[in-house]
């Protein structure tokens, strides 16, 4: 068995890849070394077998279609214009809805404390009847003035120091009584604000029409281009 350097040289010699001097050197060795000569002949025969292998023809055509390579039909510039207008109209439409719903959200957030305050008052009043001593001590302080409030203006003069404190409390209780209708009026305000939308419905309809119209035209252009392309 020859070393690999010899094998490599013989392989290159077969393909005519050696220089003239290298070829001459190898040829002189081939005549003097029969083993080397037989390696050359065997290798030539093996290469000959490979070269004689029947060339198989392609069983079908491998030609490509536009779909196979993902080619898209050339679209006119108007297509991108209509596509852009569809996108803009859609975004604006969404923004109008968002803008119109913002005041409602704002009112909903502001109304909540008022309602909770109102219910808290109701809880405080109701609680005095059922709960223990601390609540009971506070309850007369609020309820007593309201009971004595009606005769208060007439009995103002004899009512000395004890009345003066009750009179001092009376306006706060009165104010609370006056404020009580507020929760009833708040939903009315809210519904009024809801009715007065920031962006009128007409604009929303216009935007919707523009969006749908542009999308339809863009789709038609695309379909037409595809039909021409195929």
């Amino acid at each position, binding site marked *: 068995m020859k070393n*690999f350097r010899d*094998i*490599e040289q*013989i*392989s*290159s010699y077969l*393909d005519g*890849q050696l220089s003239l001097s290298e070829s001459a050197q190898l040829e002189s060795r081939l005549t003097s070394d029969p083993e080397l000569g*037989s390696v050359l*002949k*065997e*290798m030539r*025969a*093996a*290469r*000959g*077998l*490979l*070269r004689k*292998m*029947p*060339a*198989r*023809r*392609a*069983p*079908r*055509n*491998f*030609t*490509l*279609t*536009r779909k*196979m*390579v993902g*080619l898209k039909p050339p679209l006119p510039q108007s297509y991108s214009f209509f596509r852009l207008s569809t996108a803009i109209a859609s975004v604006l439409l969404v923004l109008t809805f968002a803008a119109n719903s913002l005041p409602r959200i704002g009112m909903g957030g502001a109304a909540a404390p008022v309602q909770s305050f109102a219910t808290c008052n109701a809880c405080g009043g109701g609680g005095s009847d059922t709960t223990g001593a601390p609540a009971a001590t506070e309850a007369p302080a609020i309820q007593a003035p309201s009971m004595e409030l009606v005769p208060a203006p007439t009995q103002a003069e004899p009512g000395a120091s004890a009345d003066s404190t009750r009179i001092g409390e009376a306006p706060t209780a009165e104010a609370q009584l006056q404020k009580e209708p507020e929760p009833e009026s708040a939903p009315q305000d809210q519904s009024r604000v809801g009715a007065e939308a920031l962006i009128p419905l007409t604009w929303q309809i216009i935007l919707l029409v523009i969006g749908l119209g542009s999308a339809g035209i863009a789709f038609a252009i695309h379909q037409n281009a595809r039909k021409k392309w195929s």
Partner: protein
Amino acid sequence: MDESALIHAAQNGDLDSFNTLILHYQDAVFHTALRILGDEDPAEDAAQEAFISAFRSLSTFRGGSFKAWLMRTVTNACYDELRRQKRRPTTPLEPETQDGDEMDSPRWLADPNMTPAERSEADELEHAVQHCLDALPTDFRTVVVLADIQGMDYSEVASAARVPLGTIKSRLARARLRLRECLRGFEELLPSSFRLEEERNS
């Protein structure tokens, strides 16, 4: 066929020009894939993948031998196919003999122009050579297929296989050496020229 004009047109997106190139090279591409993969169906898939990939990456072709560039693409497609086969090995549905064994040389590929005896001999010789090719490591097989079966010169093979010229020489020598040893096992099928050498050596 003005190859460079067709390539230029295809680079500008003209699919018809590229299809003309495909028709010119499809036999060579398929045959290369068949010899590397050793089976028709995956060779067909690899050839199709190679052409699709070639069209998509045509902008990277910077001149030189288009055949070598195409062969690089099909070689890559074959490597991908071999990797896929390794991940998901399949059992080929080959025809069986009466005893239930698989037939070594399927007759459905028969060429009607040859006599049955000739066909049988050619089939078996081709099968033997393909068997020896399949026994080679993939890198060696690729080089020997490109150089000896496709008849490409060393620089083209180096360009297609993306390895230096020296590596091509070395791989080719090793591949031919292994083939020579493998083919000795099919002595009775080999042509007389090959057998005579064997007899003389013994």
